[in-house]
């Protein structure tokens, strides 16, 4: 029997949601400062309105739903899934006010795309967008990539039990430190240190490529935030092609890979354990997968003589394969070139790379290398069981920070999430085809949205059907949170409607 949620439960959810919104509101002060620094008055007002609206909503929820009780698992998951929707709606206010998005839905789409580190865009006339709005677009991935709840965990939430539930709700199961709030703060610490270093590296590269210093460092900060957080946004409409620079592409590639690594691995590297990167199942699987998919992409592109020189193959073929596999979505070709020029073999391989994604507990999307590695180990174990004598004891291990035995429970979890992703990819493709788009284009765009990649083959456009925009928003949201929080929210809504008192 399903029980209807009690008012006390709703209040707990509302209170913690309010706390997260308060945390988010203060992040809008960063573009306010940038707007004032660059003397952009109207954009400053856009963000002041957004900040005040978020603050009022946050205040309202924390006052009305005030409680001293901690979250349980279900409530933690619901708070997380609702906080992503609230962040999307409130974060879209300044975007919509700028006039660069044709509708509030387009602004919400862009905001969800940023927060979920996807990178699909519906902005109009990006080349004339203000510094403040452009920074906000790139701050979205930086906040969402690290985790919206982590913003609140770091500064506003005191109880560690509820905090851990929200942390898990954002698809992070690994604690780097025993205390989850310390873990959240560590994630912010390394992200900000890397932000400073990345901005310097990309800014200097930009200056050497002929960009004015102020612009170079602004672009550097934006590209780093969207690159390290595997989002793929860029301040100009041509994305990375704007720079026409192999050096810029190389630095970007480094940050894409670096950002797609597990935060636990960053923690190990931070503490001097460099050997972990060579032993870890995720980095090994990622390396093998990148090499294998690049080989097939190369064959596909060579068959059609798309890029007749090796350097072209590297700068276009490898760059986009790496960008897709790490789920970043940075592009140096135009969207329709994928369909018009790449051919089926290279394109399908790229879709597979996007679907697989990169490391767990990172900012990247997709199925994730840890799950792929575990499923491969389980398959290996089963094959051994068939081949070896019946009395032989077959045990399979993998290394992820420590040596771990392959257990049925972890294989089942990996398999369930993988199946959920596959269903999401196919469902999006079917909806795309329902609206008349070809199969390959629909599958490409759907995988890109659900895998939080951000590549587009031309479907994502302000003129696409509203239902498809909503489909992609849901895919980006579900793909980023890895389903459990969404299932919890759906369960809660169902219980509210059909549950018994």
């Amino acid at each position: 029997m399903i029980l209807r949620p009690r008012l006390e439960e709703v209040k707990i959810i509302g209170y913690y949601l309010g706390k997260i919104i308060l945390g988010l509101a203060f992040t809008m002060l960063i573009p306010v400062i940038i707007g004032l620094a660059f003397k952009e008055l109207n954009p400053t007002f856009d963000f002041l309105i957004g900040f005040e609206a978020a603050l009022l909503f946050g205040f309202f929820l924390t006052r009305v739903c005030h409680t001293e009780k901690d979250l349980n698992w279900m409530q933690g998951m619901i708070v997380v899934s609702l906080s992503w929707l609230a962040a999307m709606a409130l974060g879209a206010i300044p975007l919509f006010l700028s006039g660069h998005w044709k509708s509030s839905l387009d602004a919400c789409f862009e905001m969800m795309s940023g927060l979920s580190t996807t990178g699909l865009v519906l902005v109009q006339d990006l080349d004339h967008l203000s510094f403040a709005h452009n920074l906000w677009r790139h701050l979205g991935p930086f906040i969402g990539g690290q985790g919206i709840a982590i913003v609140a965990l770091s500064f506003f939430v005191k109880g560690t039990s509820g905090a851990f539930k929200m942390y898990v709700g954002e698809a992070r199961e690994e604690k780097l430190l025993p205390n989850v709030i310390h873990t959240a703060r560590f994630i912010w610490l390394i992200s900000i240190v890397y932000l400073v270093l990345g901005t310097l590296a990309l800014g200097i590269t930009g200056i050497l490529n002929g960009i004015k210093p102020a612009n170079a460092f602004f672009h550097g900060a934006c590209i780093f935030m969207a690159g390290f957080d595997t989002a793929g946004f860029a301040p100009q409409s041509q994305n990375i092609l704007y720079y026409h620079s192999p050096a810029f592409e190389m630095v970007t590639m480094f940050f894409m890979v670096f950002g797609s690594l597990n935060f636990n691995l960053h923690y190990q590297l931070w503490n001097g354990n460099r050997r972990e990167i060579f032993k870890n199942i995720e980095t090994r699987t990622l390396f093998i997968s990148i090499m294998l998919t690049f080989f097939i992409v190369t064959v596909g592109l060579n068959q059609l003589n798309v890029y007749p020189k090796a350097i072209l193959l590297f700068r276009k073929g490898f760059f986009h394969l790496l960008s897709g596999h790490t789920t970043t979505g940075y592009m140096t070709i135009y969207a329709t070139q994928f369909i018009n020029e790449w051919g089926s073999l290279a394109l399908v391989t790229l879709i597979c790379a996007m679907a697989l994604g990169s490391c767990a507990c990172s900012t990247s999307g997709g199925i994730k290398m840890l799950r792929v590695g575990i499923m491969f180990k389980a398959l290996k174990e089963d094959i051994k069981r068939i081949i070896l004598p019946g009395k032989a004891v077959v045990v399979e291990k993998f290394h992820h920070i420590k040596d771990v035995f392959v257990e049925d429970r972890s294989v089942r979890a990996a398999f369930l999430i993988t199946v959920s992703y596959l269903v999401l990819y196919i469902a999006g493709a079917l909806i795309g085809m329902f609206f008349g788009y070809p199969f390959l284009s629909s599958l490409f765009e759907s995988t890109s949205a659900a895998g939080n990649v951000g590549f587009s083959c031309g479907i994502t456009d302000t003129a696409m059907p509203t239902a498809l925009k909503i489909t992609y928003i849901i895919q980006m949201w579900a793909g980023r949170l890895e389903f459990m929080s969404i299932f919890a929210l759906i369960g809660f809504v169902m219980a509210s409607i059909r549950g018994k008192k």
Partner: protein
Amino acid sequence: MLKRISAVLFLVFILAYGPQQVICFAKSISSTELINNAKAYDGKTVTYEGEAIGDIMRRGEYAWINVNDGINAIGIWINVSLLKDINYTGSYKSSGDKIEVKGIFHRACLEHGGDLDIHAESVRKIESGRMIDRKTDPAKRNLSLILGGVLVLIWILSLFKRK
């Protein structure tokens, strides 16, 4: 007689095809047309026009500028000597010069790592850019002041409530 017939035929040919040829050559091609039919235009001389946007990125004797025709922006590889007429590039605070570029189109430029670009042979300014004077929007200012006032009121009320 033969000369007259030849002259008339030549005139008819020029009248029939000449202007079309001239128009085709001078007519600028949109970015969408170039990108979607990149193979057909590869290595051909094209005319493309749009607004110069972003930075002018100098690389020795040449530079990169990006020209946006309202749909997409395409990179133009240009000799620095051709840049003298370009004074404004598009950004939040300025609209860029509108220029017409005649040059060789590349689907995947061998010289520039496979970029889709145009190597400019000539550039002509069609319309001058300018600084954009963006006036403060009174509706936005008033709304932010009203919301700010409400927030301050709530804060003061909460202080009284605590006491």
